[in-house]
Each structure stands twice: as structure tokens, then as C-alpha cells.
């Protein structure tokens, strides 16, 4: 009951939040919402123990596919977004054949190479990818009216609500997957792939499944991004973006579902709002880099370890009071 109340309260805050922000902060909020989906999908990928450096490029596959489908074939934008997600998942499935011959560090490097090849193909082929300049004037979301609220996608607030709904549903699906026997099998593959295999788990199939699912959600986030900013190019999905995703994930911690999301939110707010407001415009990357180093040095288990510490203290207190009640 209290859980439901907390959830509703959190939802109300998320709905009210943009009204307390300036226009530029609202725009950052939209990007942040999309990035939450990127890091959450990245964690789904890492559940089986593999770290990829191609995730942002896969996100770009979703963006390019959705942009091209709506622009060239005139497909209704929300449908194009779903098809973009599907395209990203299919590309991941094709990549899984060479990539899952590798493990660990080699998978990391292999995924980087595969991603760079895709990016260079966008750069090289003006038709249909637009070459280095990418795709411009991507169709925006068509406005619509749901009775209680009119979505006018010229406003960041409207797009924020739309993205919030898409990301919320996606997170809920990922959460259910992780809590299911499929999720347990992902963990088993991660911690002891030999024992999992001896228990009859097709380890490679499960690695592929996690990769394809995560890529589908990454593709969806790319599509959300493309139809919001309206222009994408190969550099929108380069290693630098990947480094941000990696950093959010590691600084947040990957042991829990919320760890990477926490990392993404905290670091984005710090970077885009606190440091900007404090007037450190030029020094922002410097301070950001310093925070990265300090956090891995002094918080190797991520931000989530702080939250878990606080939670377990609270539970310990509750347990003690519960026990005294029981003895009475």
C-alpha cells in the first residue's frame, strides 16, 4: 500500500517537474528521459556479463531507420519508431553471429569495431544516409489530443510527457523480464556460464537474447531522439556518446536495476544544471572528468551502494522495532 502511494507520488512529481523548469532545462529533461532508456537498456545487455561499445551506434540504427521510414516512405511517426526499434534489434541479431564468437574484452573491442563500421557506412553513403551531414528535417511527432491533454510537439513539455510514457512502459517491461525466470537465467549466464550450460542453458542463445532485446530498446530511444531534435548525423552516435553511457552506468553501478538510471540522472543534473548555473561553462568537462575519477576511486560499487546502504540501515531499524513488538 505504501509502495503504491510512493509510486503514485513519484509519478506526480515526474508530471509536475517540467512546470518548475526553464525552457532550456525542459529540453535537457527530454534528453535525460531518453538517456534513462539508453542506460537501462545498456544494463539489460550487461546482465549476461558482456560489455558492448556499440550500444550507442545501435541506438543510432533505430534513429536512422525511424527517420528514413517516416521521411521517405511517409510512415506514421509512432509506427516508424517501433519499426526503428525492430530494425535495431535485427541489426543486433545479425551482429551477434560474429560478435558472440568472442567474450569479455574481445567482445568489447569487437562491438566497438562493428559499431564504427556502421557509423562509417552512414558517413560514406550519401544515399540514403545523407553522408557526414546526416538527415535533416526529420518529421516531428504529429500533434494529437487525448481529451485531457493536447500534445503540441512544438513544446518540450509535450514531448517530455510522450517520452516519459514510452520510457516508463519500456522500463516496466525490462523490469518484468529481469524479475522473470529469463532474467534469472541471464544472471546465471553471467556468474557461471559453465554451470549454467551444464544445467541445460543454451548460453549463446541467452547472450544473443539479451543483446537483441537491449538493442531493441536502444533503437527505440534513438527514434525518440531523432524525432525530437529533427536532425541526426554519424557524429550524434560516436564514441564520445558511448563514453557517456558507459560512465553513467559504471558511476551508478550495475548491480541493481536503478543503479545506471541513478548514475545518468545525477551526472546529467550535475553537468547540465549545477555546473552550468554555477558559471563553469568552459571548465565543465574538467570537473566532470574529475568527478568520474573520484567516483571510481572512492565509490567503486557505484552510487547505488549509497542507496543500498541507507535502505539496509532503515530495514535493520524496522526489523528491530518489529522484533520488540513480537516479544510483547
Amino acid at each position: 500500500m505504501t509502495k503504491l502511494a510512493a509510486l503514485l507520488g513519484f509519478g506526480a512529481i515526474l508530471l509536475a517537474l517540467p512546470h518548475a523548469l526553464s525552457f532550456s532545462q525542459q529540453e535537457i529533461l527530454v534528453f535525460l528521459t531518453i538517456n534513462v532508456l539508453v542506460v537501462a537498456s545498456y544494463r539489460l545487455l550487461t546482465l549476461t556479463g558482456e560489455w558492448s561499445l556499440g550500444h550507442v551506434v545501435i541506438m543510432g540504427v533505430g534513429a536512422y531507420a525511424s527517420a528514413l521510414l517516416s521521411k521517405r516512405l511517409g510512415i506514421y511517426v509512432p509506427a516508424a519508431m517501433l519499426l526503428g526499434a525492430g530494425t535495431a534489434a535485427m541489426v543486433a541479431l545479425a551482429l551477434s553471429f560474429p560478435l558472440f564468437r568472442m567474450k569479455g574484452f574481445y567482445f568489447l573491442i569487437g562491438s566497438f569495431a562493428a559499431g564504427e563500421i556502421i557509423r562509417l557506412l552512414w558517413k560514406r553513403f550519401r544515399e540514403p544516409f545523407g553522408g557526414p551531414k546526416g538527415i535533416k528535417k526529420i518529421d516531428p511527432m504529429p500533434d494529437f489530443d487525448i481529451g485531457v491533454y493536447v500534445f503540441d510537439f512544438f513544446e518540450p513539455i509535450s514531448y517530455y510527457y510522450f517520452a516519459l510514457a514510452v520510457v516508463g512502459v519500456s522500463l516496466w517491461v525490462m523490469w518484468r523480464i529481469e524479475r522473470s525466470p529469463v532474467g534469472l537465467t541471464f544472471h546465471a549466464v553471467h556468474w557461471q556460464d559453465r554451470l549454467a550450460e551444464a544445467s541445460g542453458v543454451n548460453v549463446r542463445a541467452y547472450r544473443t537474447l539479451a543483446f537483441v532485446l537491449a538493442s531493441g530498446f536502444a533503437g527505440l530511444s534513438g527514434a525518440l531522439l531523432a524525432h525530437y531534435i529533427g536532425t541526426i548525423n554519424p557524429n550524434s552516435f560516436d564514441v564520445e556518446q558511448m563514453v557517456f553511457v558507459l560512465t553513467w552506468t559504471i558511476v551508478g553501478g550495475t548491480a541493481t536495476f536503478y543503479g545506471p538510471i541513478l548514475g545518468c540522472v545525477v551526472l546529467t543534473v550535475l553537468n547540465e544544471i549545477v555546473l552550468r548555473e554555477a558559471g563553469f561553462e568552459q571548465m565543465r568537462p574538467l570537473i566532470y572528468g574529475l568527478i568520474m575519477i573520484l567516483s571510481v576511486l572512492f565509490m567503486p560499487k557505484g552510487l547505488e551502494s549509497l542507496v543500498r546502504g541507507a535502505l539496509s540501515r532503515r530495514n535493520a531499524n524496522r526489523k528491530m522495532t518489529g522484533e520488540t513488538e513480537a516479544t510483547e
Partner: protein
Amino acid sequence: MIELLAQTGLNALYAASYTALVAVGLVLIFGVMGVINFAHGELFMLGAYAIVAVYADWNLPYLVAVAVGMTFVGIVGLGMERAFFRPLRDNPLGGLVASIGFLMILQALVSMGFGVRMEHVPPVTQDVIVITEKVRLPVFRLAVILAAVVLLASLWAFLKKTRFGWALRASAQDPEAAALQGISINQTARIAMFIGAALAGVAGALTAPLISVNPHMGHSVIVTAFIVIIVGGIGSLEGAVIVAVAYAFVHTFVTTFFDGVIADIVGLLLLLAVLIVKPTGLFGSADRA
């Protein structure tokens, strides 16, 4: 046609020389410390800016600037080792993130100090050796090639002939056994980091007069170096040198006869092919990953 081939071959040799310096440094750091130094491209960039400051701005002799750059970047490497690679020795992913953080710091510092615009370093010498009408080798490029050969040869001699070199190779092969032999891991890590960083710095310093220097120039260098060390086999110095030369030739020829993007794609496809067929690289044996 033969002349074009010869000219492209000379260009490739020049590209190979600085690629090898960067890649060998990266391999040395990975071999001894087991960490991927993502900031290696920025150490290259620092070496180039040392030339901008000491040679172009202060008008000191070029060779002095190279020596200053090499030493300075080596010392930066020592600082990195002490500040985060050492505390994060058992956490390779953490070391990687810390080096990414450091990369951002270096880029920001250089942008603040020099501005983000491209710097052009005045040429050291304009002399050109004319081999035939269409095959020309600028003297400066020849000097870069020779310097790389001399540096790599002396590194080789250092590793094979000296006690420090022996300790370095021992701890690269098996850190625990080396520690039992009384080799200080901290000391070998310091030496590896200093040499590895200094090699990246000197590579940047040597190429600075021939390329446009900017705070983000490290990116393409690190990508190339990664390809080279993976294909060569992580931990194999000989492999890194051989593949650096081979890669530079493939890349330069494809660039000349097709275009640069195709050359990058070819390089990455080669990398993927090697990873699929022999993940430990062409010259690698021990699996350290």
C-alpha cells in the same frame, strides 16, 4: 604507376612510424598494468602541444621541444599511475573509466590554455629529397621515420638487455610470479607508464609540424592504436610494431586509391576478422583478458 606506388609506400612508412610508437606504448602499459589507457591519444595530443608551446611560441630549438615534450608527457604518465591506476589495480573497468575522466580533463585544460582552434606549427625544414620527378621524400618525414626506428630499437635493447627490462617483461608475463621473485609491481608499473606515456608524447611531438594540432586530435590516433594492438595480439610488442607497419600500408594505399572512409572500414573489418578467427591476435599467445 610505379612512381605512385613508391610515393604511397613512403607515405605509409611515415604513418607506420608514429602509429608504432603510440601502439607500443599502449601495449607496454596494458602488458604490465593490465589496464586499457583510454587517455593514450590525449598523451599524444599533449606531446604535440608541447611543440606548439616550446617550439612555436617560445622559439626554442625543435629538438629541445621534442625532449621537453617527451619528458613532460612521461611525467604526466607517472602522475596517472600514482593517482588512479595504482589504487584501481584490481578494478580494470574502474581504471578504464578513470582514464576516460582524465582524457576529458586533459582536453579541457588544453582547450582553456590554447583555445580550441587548430594550431599550425611552422615547418622545421622544407628540404625535400627528390628521388624521381614524382617521388619525393621530405627530409622531415625521413627524420621522423629514423627517430621512430631509433626509439623502438633502444626500447627493445632496454627490455632485452637491462635488469629493469627483464623485470618489466617478467611482470608482464605473470605479475604474481614476478612479485614472488622480489620484483616491485609499483616500480615496474611506474617504469612502464613513464615509457609508454613518453612514447605517445614523442610521437605527438614528432608529427606536430606535419598535422593540424587541436585538443581533439587524440581520437583518431587511439582508434588506430587499438586496432593495431588487438590485431597484433595484446601484450606483444613485436606484434604491435609489425601490425603498425602492415596497417599503415593497407590504410595509406586504400586511402590513396579509394578514400579515407573506405580505408577505415577496411581496417575495422580486418580487426573483426582477426577477432573472429584468432581472438588473441596474430602474435599473441597468453590470454590475459
